[in-house]
């Protein structure tokens, strides 16, 4: 058959214009900065707002307060109770997603152009005048407790909790932002109000918008939405050390397949060698057969459905961390192969061929991320939180392309530390002994 004539092996992306987006920086009349991509073809806008600190701002003994507070933002505001708020939102066909993780509380909103002012007014009431009614608190608390109970019996969650506890000691990162059954059961309305005041403030806000809206309209919208917020929230926690030491922790759990989470300290986003590290981690642990872990553990040996490892560069700590699940009788081999690859990466870095393939993927995939209003708004907030600057979309691929095999070798020898690698294994793993 001759129909298939592409010179496949030679097809490499030429680094063209990095991203087809034109980002404007907008400063509202009231002084709040935002990034905007104006895109008029669909009559709606996506708005992403983040408050830095998020779930790490729980006060001592109040674990889960920020999470529960976040879930309550859409459960009644101003003169509307929970059902009144939901009805008003749905009547406008707006959507407001309130979410929180360890570094930020996020608000992901979208609203139609035809009723934008009403949709923004309703969102404003959720952000500036949430009611935290006792009946809503009790109802949502029960839902959070149900989530916690479900997580208590989920092997992957059990593994990640133990891993975080070992890594972060008494730092907020050590425990789940959901809290425990005990801590959440004890939360009062006062705790929720305190969490709200600690987290939602103007001194930690980041805004991105994309869609059917002009810079001037966005400036006014932002002031309408956010001007009523308090100026200052609670201080952010200090950075955390990573306390992991090399070894294996086994958590016995009745399940046919063991889950392992593994890793050690990583590298900060603003480290001068971050880009070589990023490229190295892609070659090493990206999902799929193109990475070394994917090739060795899944593709060649069939030990798992999926394995990956990546740089987890949080605001207050950094990890290189990965995850794999294998049958109890095969997890020992998956771990052994992972350890060997870790050591090989530390000793040898990557080959020219691997580097070229990684660059082609990373630079080619980057512009494809900017394909919807919702994702553009999210990406722009992430860039601001990482302090990347407006021109980053144009310089980022150049930074990837500048990485050499020498750069990777140098950073890999300080980033991948086989003696410090710690595995938390949840299951009934055969042939694995805990080391502590």
């Amino acid at each position: 058959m001759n129909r298939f004539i592409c010179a496949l092996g030679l097809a490499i992306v030429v680094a063209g214009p990095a991203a087809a987006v034109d980002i404007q920086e907008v400063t509202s009349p009231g002084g709040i900065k935002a990034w905007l991509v104006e895109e008029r073809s669909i009559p709606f806008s996506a708005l992403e707002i983040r408050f830095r600190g998020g779930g790490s701002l729980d006060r001592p003994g109040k674990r889960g307060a920020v999470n529960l507070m976040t879930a309550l933002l859409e459960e009644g505001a101003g003169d509307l109770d929970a059902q009144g708020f939901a009805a008003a939102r749905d009547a406008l066909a707006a959507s407001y997603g309130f979410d929180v993780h360890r570094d930020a509380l996020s608000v992901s909103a979208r609203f139609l152009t035809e009723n934008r002012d009403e949709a923004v007014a309703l969102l404003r009431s959720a952000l500036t005048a949430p009611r935290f009614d006792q009946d809503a608190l009790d109802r949502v608390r029960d839902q959070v407790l149900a989530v916690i109970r479900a997580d208590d019996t989920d092997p992957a969650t059990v593994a990640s909790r133990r891993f975080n506890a070992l890594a972060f000691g008494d730092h907020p990162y050590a425990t789940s932002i959901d809290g425990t059954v005990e801590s959440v059961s004890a939360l009062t309305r006062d705790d929720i109000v305190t969490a709200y005041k600690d987290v939602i403030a103007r001194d930690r806000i980041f805004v991105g918008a994309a869609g059917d809206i002009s810079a001037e309209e966005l400036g006014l919208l932002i002031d309408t939405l956010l001007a009523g917020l308090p100026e200052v929230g609670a201080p952010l926690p200090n950075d955390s050390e990573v306390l992991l030491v090399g070894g294996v922790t086994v958590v016995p759990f009745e399940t046919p397949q063991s889950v392992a989470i593994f890793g050690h300290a990583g590298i900060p986003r603003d480290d001068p060698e971050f880009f070589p590290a990023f490229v190295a981690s892609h070659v090493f642990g990206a999902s799929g057969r193109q990475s070394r872990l994917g090739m060795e553990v899944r593709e060649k040996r069939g030990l798992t459905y999926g394995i990956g490892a990546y740089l987890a560069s949080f605001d207050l700590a950094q990890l290189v961390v990965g995850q794999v699940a294998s049958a109890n009788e095969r997890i020992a081999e998956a771990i052994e192969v992972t350890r060997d690859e870790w050591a090989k990466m530390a000793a040898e870095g990557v080959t020219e061929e691997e580097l070229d393939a990684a660059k082609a993927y990373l630079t080619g995939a980057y512009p494809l991320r900017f394909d919807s209003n919702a994702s553009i708004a999210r990406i722009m907030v992430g860039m601001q939180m990482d302090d990347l600057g407006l021109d980053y979309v144009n310089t980022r691929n150049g930074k990837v392309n500048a990485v050499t095999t020498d750069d990777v070798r140098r950073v890999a020898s300080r980033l991948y530390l086989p003696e410090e690698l710690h595995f938390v294994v949840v299951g009934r793993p055969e042939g694995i002994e805990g080391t502590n």
Partner: protein
Amino acid sequence: MHIFVLALATALVALPASLQAEGITTFELENGLEAVVIEDHRAPVVVHMVWYRVGAADEPPGKSGIAHFLEHLMFKATDELASGELSDVVFRNGGSDNAFTSYDYTSYVQRIAADRLDLVMGMEASRMDGLALVEEDISTERDVVIEERKQRTDSDPGTLFREQIYAAAFLNHPYGVPVIGWKHEAETLTLEDAVSFYKQHYGPNNAILVVAGDVEPDEVRALAERHYGIIPPNPNVRARSRPSEPPQLAERRLSFSDPRIGNDYMTRIYLVPERDPENQAEAAALAMLAQILGGSSTTSALARKLQFEDPKAVYTAAWYRERALDDTIFGLAIVPVEGVSLEEAESLLDEAVAEFMEEGVDAEELERIRTRIRAAEIYARDDISNLANLYGAGLTAGLSVEDVQAWPGILQEVTEEEILSAARRHLDRRRAVTGFARQSEEVVR
């Protein structure tokens, strides 16, 4: 409040999204390949998909999991490509690829820069009729699939229970067999099984091409002619005809326990009609019924009655698997608050549904649902992958492009009386499967 989603439904009620005919072009090649092109010129991206009208419900008896296993093996060698080469080339061009198997379809997807459409189409065409499997591909990939089953099913009691409920709901139709396969059968699948399934079902006359993104329909057509147009139709392909269910004469009840269940819950599924070509009114009434009962976690009938007025439930749900080739399911579920037993929860749920049928539909809630459906058509244009999925999944479920496009309008026209009449006709627990899932101290398997 969206934090609590249990793994007990195949999918919670999703609002139907959208379908403006604007920017959508269709054509068919002489060999029977149907194509849908969705234009979106905002970003230089294309999503390229081939959907085959074959899924787990088309497997021969005793070979459960073969559709999904073959999907994995489709990434191995073809006459022109080395094993794994397709994915490697997609990655080297900044793209990503994936594949999905369901009851009624198997689909293959790449997302890549729009100027690489030619490249991915050439490779996808190569595996449409040129798969060249060898024995050494089989055993490693079968291990991967068994690990996949362990990860997604055996490690998750909610999924294990759902398998049992489906098996009980479908005594005769293959929707009762899990897509990933029963473990004891999936473990024994062979090269011959995969090749035989491939030769039976794959080919342009059993495929739908969906291309969405920064492309021109004429250009897509020219490329499709070049890559797919030269593949002859597969003479083995037959119209799908599966065993159907006998009348249900006995109520079916299941009790499941597992130490890994964090919260006891009750779920019930009813056998109901699916969306049929040029006949979607009954399905539309069921879809609106699911929305009215459970579409909002705050204002739906079940939430109002069971979570707000006199809170006895942490969570309630109603869903309808509207897109299927054959008769499908409508589901209800409840997670009671602590101190309320599953028996009580079931009675409360039944009472709430009975009350709903007495009281009728809340007119304001119905209007809000209609508003959201209208808006969903606008929001859907922001996500071309999802839009492409609507056509691929719709067409492989036996619908036409016109049916897919007509659906939001048909939903808008559903009346209160039609919703109530659908509820009265279908929500009869004597013709349903009811399951209790409880945390147990010891493993029952």
